[in-house]
């Protein structure tokens, strides 16, 4: 129910009387409905679900969240790369043959 992807508003226009926008998703552009974000302007980021922008992304908040993440957890060891978790493959699922 919830696949929504962030994009940057590149252009705003009207189509058949409905407020629409062309969004840049980082390499592709798609036209979506912007009727639910009447105050959004070109340059804003929004998340898009089934061709509708349903929420602006608060960029300050996003940066704050990332900052918080980066400061999380002082570990004894330095993690340069993503550590490979010890992986034991799951035992075969009991699917009867």
């Amino acid at each position, binding site marked *: 129910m919830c696949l929504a992807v962030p994009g940057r508003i590149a252009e705003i226009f009207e189509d058949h009387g409905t407020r629409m926008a062309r969004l840049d998703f980082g390499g592709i552009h798609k036209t979506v409905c912007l009727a639910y974000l009447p105050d959004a302007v070109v340059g804003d*980021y929004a998340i898009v679900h*089934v061709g*509708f922008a349903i929420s602006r992304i608060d960029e300050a908040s996003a940066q704050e969240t990332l900052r918080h993440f980066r400061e999380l957890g002082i*570990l004894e060891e330095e993690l340069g790369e993503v550590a490979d978790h010890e992986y034991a493959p799951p035992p075969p699922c009991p699917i009867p043959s």
Partner: protein
Amino acid sequence: MKYLEEFRDGEIAQRIAAEIRQITTRPWAIMEVCGGQTHSILRNGIDQLLPPEIELIHGPGCPVCVTPLEMIDKALAIAARPEVTFCSFGDMLRVPGTDRDLFRVKSEGGDVRVVYSPLDAVALARKHPEKQVVFFGIGFETTAPANAMAVHVARREGLRNFSMLVSHVLVPPAIDAIMRSPTNRVQAFLAAGHVCSVMGFWQYPPLATQHRVPIVITGFEPLDVLEGIRRTVRQLEAGDARVENAYERVVTFDGNAPAQALLEEVFAETDRAWRGIGVIPKSGWRLSDAYADYDAEHRFDVRDIRTVESPRCRAGEVLQGSIKPTECEAFGRECTPRAPLGATMVSSEGACAAYFNYGRVVQLERVVSA
């Protein structure tokens, strides 16, 4: 992709997971409501980074899994009609009805089309006045604004050849029903971040208080899901039961006002049968009386649909977390992704399909960082 890939950072993910391991002292059962979150968990292996004490119960948050069988059968009946162009999201194409699915209908000559947006179905109606274009309006509150706008635009333009088959389901009543179930094991919820981007989260504090459960509004990328879990565990360990917003960059308390305004106009509350679970009162939306003309259920006579759910399917118990898929006798035998008995075996985030495809058994292999 900005504001997406940063939230997939593997190193940070492992740090958040390490935090979770540090603060967990006993077993907790947490349910993520949203199918999109389930998909992210399985796709990225997020649960493998958690300590063994944390059990994630995959909730009924996928419209594919919970759309009532009767509604699927109505969709199939309408789609089979020669004058109809039936438009749907891709997710619904393989969901089994009583005796077939939309793919079968298509192969038998039905004009069934996958669309990305409900507005694409409206565009088809404009382009093909000779066809009756019907859109399958399923989904949670996240999708409802899109569906509402489509039918609103169609009515505004007087597109008489457009109609919508509506089967919306709502999250708060589902949380309430799950907590009231006598077999409930859920101790906390990760609420659906994108549902809340539309509705806000003002509906959740009464639920948290009444049922004494932490409810953390959570996003979808690995870092968002892990952070949601971290805040949830922190509350559980402290004996708290509050609503917390862990998806602040997108979700506000009030939500999207223009969207909620149109939802008020286009939809009306209704009781809804959740496939496999049963009727949850006031847990769905149907088209309001003002939009009755655009309701496919009225336009096409589908009143005599007789539905027969497979007696062997226990999807409802799986959806509520009462049983694991492997505890169902049909699992892997007459019920497989190729020949699913119920929706939880069809959907890529249905628990049964996940267990089958990802080869998981009972408890996932836990991984412990060095």
